[in-house]
């Protein structure tokens, strides 16, 4: 039986895998069911945010502070930012339109698909929350003992069965 020190040791690989894709750290360490549950929660927030606000709510240059939190979702956040840049900001998805600018300043063009007001606010918040929660998930993946779900202190362990 492993001692308490080894059970609570920090495994960086779990955290790295958890950042690569939400829940992957748990799945790789044998806690697949827990990883899938965590993945479901984080991805509901992430894709829910993109559905509400569009990819414009992940913007590395215009919303840099928000992006610090959103980037904790891993490569999918960077992919969403890239899609925003390639589809919306470049004008590929829809021709850019000119917006008001200060006198003497260069003209400003934006995509008509750019999110504003509540849609942008909630989309940004959803993806940000997904990133923050993924920090909890990947830290848990780093310290949770491998294949420990079946030997938890819950009912199943008391009953003598394994998950």
């Amino acid at each position: 039986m492993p001692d308490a020190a080894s059970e609570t040791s920090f495994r960086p690989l779990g955290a790295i895998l958890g950042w690569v894709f939400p829940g992957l750290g748990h799945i790789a360490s044998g806690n697949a069911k827990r990883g899938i549950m965590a993945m479901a929660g984080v991805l509901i927030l992430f894709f829910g945010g993109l559905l509400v606000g569009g990819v414009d709510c992940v913007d590395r240059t215009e919303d840099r502070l928000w992006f610090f939190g959103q980037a904790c979702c891993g490569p999918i956040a960077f992919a969403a930012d890239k899609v925003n840049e390639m589809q919306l900001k470049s004008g590929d998805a829809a021709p850019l339109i000119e917006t008001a600018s200060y006198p003497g300043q260069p003209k400003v063009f934006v995509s008509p698909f750019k999110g504003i007001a509540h849609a942008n606010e909630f989309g940004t918040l959803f993806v940000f929350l997904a990133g923050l929660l993924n920090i909890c998930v990947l830290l848990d993946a780093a310290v949770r003992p491998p294949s420990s779900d079946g030997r938890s202190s819950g009912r199943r362990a008391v009953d003598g069965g394994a998950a």
Partner: protein
Amino acid sequence: MTLAWTPFLQPAPGVQHWWWMLVVPMALGVSMAYKAVRTKDLADWPRDVLRMTLQILAAVVGIALGLYVLVILVLPLLPAE
């Protein structure tokens, strides 16, 4: 009328009118991820998620009611000067 909507590229239509309903999927997503980490026995996960979701919603509704009472009922009672 929504003639065309490209999901994930364009913001969802109608959000300006029902934005306050978004607290429900937000509470659900937060609860699902948090309880996946905190629940000891995974068999309890659905029940824990439901409970935490309802707790978040109750807290938000409570804050809304408190602010309503404060802003609409209490503050007008204060003297103007």
